[in-house]
């Protein structure tokens, strides 16, 4: 490949005031946002923007395993396919899968498996497909975050969500959430994923040089970052189910309006002549109005739960 503009790395990653290239503080995350239910066909899906990373994840399953010999009779398997688009990076990536993508797929599998109840799905596979549309350093972390959300969106029972972020070292400082240039030009990169229910690590890699003390500091920073990401993950899930709830409530209201009271159903389904249909309609409309105005109906409805409560109380007393 010959490209006209070569990628250049700056000599200094942190300025005198302790600010990073994009003006962040040492322990500050890049802008992060996420959304679930973004792909129409997949059983579950998520979209994550982490810095300039743009990542889609989609889940199918549990479903039959292809090829069959990979199936396990005692439990289900999880398969992750992490891929980057050719245009996600500075120099066009070959469309064929490479060793890096295979390895990252594997570590994401290992990062997600401890959150699933795989023993529930013998002979089946849960398949997670991750596509990096735009890459900006830390794609494996953002992909893990997205994949975990997609599993939740698929309605699979989960022990916990997983939130992932990298820490690292640049210009002698420990920093959180490495950007593209910090990743490429820094001295160390520690990508990690945290299972949020017990804050244990489900993904960990290390690339570079660091003392054990610096590693300790990094791991604490990762937990701090993961908590911030986790808050946004849960908010995204709540947002989807809030909209679903609102939609169903609205639809229920519509249905209530459409369905005539029981007595009228029998009336309408009777063998009345068609000529009278028009009259019936106007009758119905009047009756519906009456019902709305009639307070006795609502009172009756209110009474029912009270009665139930009283019954319960009496049972408890017994």
């Amino acid at each position, binding site marked *: 490949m010959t490209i006209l503009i070569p990628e250049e790395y700056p000599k200094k990653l942190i300025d005198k005031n302790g600010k990073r290239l994009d003006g962040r503080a040492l322990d500050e995350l890049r802008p992060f946002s996420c959304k679930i239910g973004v792909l129409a*066909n997949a059983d579950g899906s998520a979209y994550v923007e982490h810095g300039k990373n743009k990542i889609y994840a989609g889940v199918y399953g549990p479903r039959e395993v292809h090829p069959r010999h990979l199936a396990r009779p005692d439990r289900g398997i999880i398969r992750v396919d992490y891929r980057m688009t050719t245009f996600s990076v500075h120099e066009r990536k070959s469309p064929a899968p490479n060793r890096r993508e295979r390895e990252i797929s594997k570590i994401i599998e290992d990062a997600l498996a401890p959150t699933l109840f795989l023993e529930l799905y013998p002979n089946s596979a849960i398949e997670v497909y991750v596509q990096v549309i*735009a890459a900006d350093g830390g794609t494996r972390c953002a992909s893990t975050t997205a994949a975990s959300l997609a599993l939740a969106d698929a309605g699979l029972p989960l022990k916990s969500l997983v939130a992932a972020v990298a820490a690292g070292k640049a210009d002698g400082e420990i920093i959180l959430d490495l950007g593209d240039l910090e990743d490429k030009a820094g001295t160390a990169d520690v990508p990690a994923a945290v299972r949020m229910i017990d804050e244990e690590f489900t993904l960990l890699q290390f690339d570079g040089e660091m003392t054990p003390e610096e590693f300790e500091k990094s791991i604490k920073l990762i937990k701090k970052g993961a908590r911030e990401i986790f808050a946004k993950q849960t908010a995204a899930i709540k947002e989807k189910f809030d909209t679903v709830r609102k939609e169903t409530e609205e639809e229920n209201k519509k249905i209530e309006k459409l369905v005539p009271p029981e007595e009228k159903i029998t009336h309408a389904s009777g063998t009345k002549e068609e000529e009278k249909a028009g009259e019936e309609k106007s009758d119905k409309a009047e009756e519906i109005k009456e019902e709305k105005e009639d307070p006795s109906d609502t009172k009756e409805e209110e009474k029912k739960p009270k009665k139930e409560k009283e019954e319960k109380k009496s049972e408890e007393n017994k």
Partner: protein
Amino acid sequence: MDTPQVISTVQRKYILDLLKQGKRMDGRGFLDFREVRIDDDLIPKAEGSASVHLGDSFIITGIKYDVGTPFPDSPDEGVATCMAEFIPFASPMFESGPPDVEAVEVARVVDRGIRHGDCIEYKKLCIKAGELVYILFIDMYVMNHAGNLIDTGAISSMTALLTTKLPTAKIEDGKAVWNGGYMLVPINQIPLSVTFGRIQDYVFVDPVIDEELVLDGRVSFAVNEKGQICSMQKSGEITWTEEELIKYSKIAVEKVNELRNKLNLRQYVPKL
């Protein structure tokens, strides 16, 4: 594609019954496209990019370039190639692996629409005749498959090409280097395509996925702004009569012009 493409008999009958009444499952007329939604310039590291929804069909296309040697039979012309990849999450029918015949067909049909009909002015993509030319990669990624990927791919490829900013080159010591400027991809004509699906004697445009699974066959036409047909593709194990092909080629020109005017893709051309 190991998972067979199947549709229930009930659904098949439903689609056919509707067609007999002159209706379609999503309420469209036989010659109506689904709604199009376009987002441009969404990928920072791509030279150009577009995300296009045609109904629920969803394709993201990005443009990358390389500086390489021209083909020997056109030494002063640049090159553009299309690739399509069906991401497995786009449909339960897709599997990971190298592009299968359907992905190759989408890429090649879109490619032919762009290659001919005076779309790109390839001579302006030449840096040094016989030695250095721009090679454009038009890479389509199918994010969600809800039918008619050829037309969706054509819209997203053209939009991505129109948004593309290429670094301009000068020759130094026989090598191409960046001279600090940018240029647009020289586009004369915007070809778009229309796909007709056929079930028995019913022919309609822009089939959705359920209709596609019932289709006896289809035929796609790419048409440029001059109203000239610049590529065709007949697909499926059926035959078309001379009258039918002539009829639908004329409708294709009308439909594509209508679509092109509606989308106004030149609004996505960036300022340099």
